[in-house]
């Protein structure tokens, strides 16, 4: 008996299970299938901090949240409609984020006495049986048994290997539930296990068994349809932030006609950029895994002097270690992009959680007057543009740039209507190759209208010069202890960064009117939460606008004026209030903060109710 099919405009599913349960893969497959189908979507994976945290425990739960919709989507969603809970710990850890009346798909095998105990349920309590889940629709499926049964005839595989395809059962079942085509995953499995026919067959069988289970079991009455979104015409792919950064730099190097050089030291959540770029040797990308973060930024400085688009990537404590060498790059006035995938701090902090708490360090965290350009990413796909933009600013202005992303967008995915290479902005790099007409002597610190000095590569005849970290003469670059020269150099390094404001776009209002009661001013990964919140508030008739800052230092020239058009400025940040300090200092605007420091994005629900309560309740 086929179930009725109900139309929904959007669904949030959370796949949760033990680290070994393959939930990331399951979520990824469903995501790609939804994307190919034409839904708009956003995802958010959430791993345990340990490699393999003890099986069955709450710290061992691995989750993947997917929000797919026939409307535009900006966040992975605050609460889920469906919770796949492969074991008791997964249920316990995620129940608070399930909507009242939501669906729970529980693998009953994961709720035996041992699992219940590991999940810290009191002796004798089983949530699947004690009525505590009465407010939800609970589908109990003995996935393990059904998986094994569907593989009864497959020889050549041990029990352990058979059990490993459990996740395909769940995936198949969800494909049935959301009326999706399984082709995407079938192709994926064929490609992945083409050389291991036993495993391939097992996975395909179990996937289909899951689908058929939905189709044939009378218990399940409801199926859902989430129609395609009315997204702009074009070709899309799904992209994660770190992937986007990696290919963004490859693109930037090509646009600048330079080799790309990355020196890095592994650290969560930045490492994937190193992993990705290591695979792009066919693009001539040079990646060097160094002995630590100091060595890696220094190696990049060396490569920059040698004429590369040089970057270095890190996170948290690793960025702190690079501070001294950033100062050297500022003094040498060499291009360099320092990528900071922010994570929960301070110190080692919460390596696998997200936070926006390195902004002040990015802007102020070096000895002496040491200005750097700072630029931030707001969504996974935005990372691509920002990587190119960071490269452009660094190369054209001959000064280091800090690129800020964070764990949330680094690992989150969204559909991306990607550009054609031919449409990417060109980056203008011209090495100085000889003295120009009328030039008597090469002056390494002579500047152009951007206040950038010329880039001369070692190997160029007659332009030998030496750079260093001591203060240098305004023109010759020779070491200078002269008092007035120092002041002049401090000011010119500052002015050089400030002048970047002439070469970046003005600040735009993202949604809402140009004038009004409340401006919600954000930066970085709060983009989706703020935008969807403000859109709803506007729809409800409130005078709220959203502006989202990409250029953190220098700020867009019109930002101050823009702020003055609003009665109130509200600044949500995933930190204890950092950008707000800069805005208040610069513009003397009495901005208020909304701060959440829980290693997770700000939810629309909480932000919306905060705004209503504070600005629209009377």
């Amino acid at each position, binding site marked *: 008996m086929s179930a009725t099919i109900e139309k929904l405009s959007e669904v949030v599913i959370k796949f949760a299970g033990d680290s070994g349960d393959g939930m990331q893969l399951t979520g990824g497959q469903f995501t790609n299938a939804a994307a190919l189908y034409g839904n708009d979507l956003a995802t958010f994976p959430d791993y345990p901090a340990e490699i393999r945290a003890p099986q069955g425990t709450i710290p061992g739960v691995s989750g993947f949240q997917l929000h797919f919709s026939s409307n535009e989507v900006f966040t992975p969603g605050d609460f889920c409609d469906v919770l796949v809970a492969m074991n008791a710990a997964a249920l316990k850890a995620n129940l608070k984020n399930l909507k009242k009346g939501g669906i729970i798909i529980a693998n009953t095998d994961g709720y035996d006495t041992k699992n219940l105990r590991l999940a810290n349920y009191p002796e004798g309590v089983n949530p699947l049986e004690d009525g505590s889940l009465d407010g939800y629709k609970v589908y109990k499926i003995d996935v393990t048994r059904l998986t094994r049964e569907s593989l009864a005839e497959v020889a050549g595989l041990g029990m352990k290997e058979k059990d490993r395809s459990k996740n395909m059962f769940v995936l198949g079942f969800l494909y049935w539930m959301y009326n999706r085509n399984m082709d995407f995953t079938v192709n994926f499995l064929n490609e992945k296990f083409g050389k291991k026919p036993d495993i391939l067959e097992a996975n395909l069988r179990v996937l289909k068994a899951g689908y058929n289970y939905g189709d044939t079991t009378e218990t399940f009455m409801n199926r859902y349809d989430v129609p395609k979104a009315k997204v702009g015409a074009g070709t899309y792919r799904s992209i994660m932030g770190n992937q986007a950064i990696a290919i963004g730099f490859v693109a930037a190097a090509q646009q600048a006609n330079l080799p790309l050089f990355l020196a890095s030291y592994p650290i969560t959540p930045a490492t994937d950029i190193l992993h990705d770029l290591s695979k792009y040797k066919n693009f001539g990308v040079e990646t060097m895994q160094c002995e630590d973060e100091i060595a890696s930024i*220094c190696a990049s400085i060396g490569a920059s002097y040698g004429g590369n688009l040089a970057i270095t990537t890190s996170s948290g404590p690793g960025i702190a270690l690079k501070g001294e060498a950033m100062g050297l790059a500022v003094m040498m006035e060499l291009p360099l992009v320092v990528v900071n995938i922010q994570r929960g701090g301070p110190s080692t902090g919460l390596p696998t959680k997200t936070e926006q708490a390195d902004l002040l360090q990015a802007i102020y965290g070096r000895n002496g007057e040491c200005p750097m350009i700072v630029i931030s990413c707001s969504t996974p796909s935005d990372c691509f543009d920002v990587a190119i933009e960071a490269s452009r600013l660094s190369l054209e202005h001959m000064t280091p740039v800090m690129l800020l992303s964070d764990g949330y967008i680094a690992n989150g995915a969204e559909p991306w209507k990607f550009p054609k290479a031919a449409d990417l902005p060109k980056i203008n790099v011209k090495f100085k190759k000889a003295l120009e007409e009328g030039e008597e002597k090469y002056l390494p610190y002579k500047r152009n209208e951007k206040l950038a000095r010329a880039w001369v590569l070692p190997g160029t005849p007659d332009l030998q010069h030496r750079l260093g970290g001591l203060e240098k003469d305004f023109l010759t670059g020779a070491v200078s202890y002269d008092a007035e020269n120092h002041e002049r150099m401090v000011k010119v390094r500052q002015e050089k960064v400030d002048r970047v404001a002439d070469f970046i776009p003005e600040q735009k209002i993202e949604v809402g009117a140009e004038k009004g009661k409340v401006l919600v001013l954000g930066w970085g990964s709060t983009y989706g939460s703020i935008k969807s919140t403000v859109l709803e508030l506007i729809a409800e008739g409130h005078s709220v606008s959203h502006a989202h800052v990409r250029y953190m230092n220098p700020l867009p020239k019109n930002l101050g004026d823009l702020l003055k058009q609003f009665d109130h400025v509200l600044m949500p940040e995933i930190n204890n209030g950092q950008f707000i300090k800069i805005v208040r200092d610069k513009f003397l605007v009495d901005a208020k903060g909304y701060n959440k420091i829980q290693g997770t994005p700000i939810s629309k629900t909480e932000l919306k109710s905060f705004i209503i309560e504070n600005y629209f309740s009377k």
Partner: protein
Amino acid sequence: MSTAAVLTAKDFANDLDIRWCPGCGDYSILKQVQTVLPQLGASIENTVFVSGIGCSSRFPYYMNTYGLHTIHGRATAVASGLKASRPDLDVWIISGDGDSMSIGAGHTIHLLRRNLNVNMLVFNNQIYGLTKGQYSPTSEENKITKSSPMGSIDHPFNPAALALGADASFVARSMDRDPKHLQEMLKRSYNHKGTSFLEIYQNCNIFNDGAFEIFTEKSSKKMQTLFVEQGKPLVFGENNEFGIKLNGFTPTVVNLNEGHSMDDLWIHDEKDLSKASILVRMFDNPMLEGDHLPRPFGVFYQNERPTYESAFHTQIESVKGKKADLDALIAGKETWTVA
């Protein structure tokens, strides 16, 4: 090469005022470097001197080549990135005993194991010069300095032993006061393919004057130094009348005038890592305490193995251009089209 052949030491010098103390050993090293570079056929524009911070690290300013005066202890790291990405350049690292072996010790040993083809000169004056006289990781124990008024208690590194332990492919020692030997060692360093670790005893006449006097002064030099040469027996003394023999693994001094012949002596073999390990320990092996052996100078070990940058570029070249389509990269594996 052909243009380089006509260069002279002057071409490698510039007209900057040199800021070392009068009498500092750094002057001699600068001069020998400027002297050998043209002889080696080095070109001015393809040469880069990279230094850290310290008196010695001022060196690049005085060369008319490209140069970087970086931050304390990190010259090795900066040079690694430069050489890896620009194997066409001749890269020299200039460092002090503090710069290379205190704050920079970690990077130094990583450079050595990676074996980039660069030349690393360690100006060892057994003191922190620039910060006005504190003991360094090569200062002898019990040294009285401003930061160790009762004598330092840190056991010093043996730089050559440390370099061998880090799998250096070239380890040598020379001194500021022996220009000929120093020139020879600079040439050997330059010609070695891989990281050349050359320790240079350098007198800091302000804060550690005379540290190497017994090796450099005429009156004691012959008895206190041992210049090793490939394939030659280990001899020293006023008239080369002493030799070093190996008693098992224990080097001992023998008098060639007293019944010992050249044939008994230890023949230097740069390729022999085991012997090199004993050679560099000749003056501080706790087992040899009591015996007074001369201090060896020369190339202790030299053995070529692939350089980091060659492997680095071999990998890239083997795949470069293959499927290197930016549009394809941007699109990734799975795309979908909305009409």
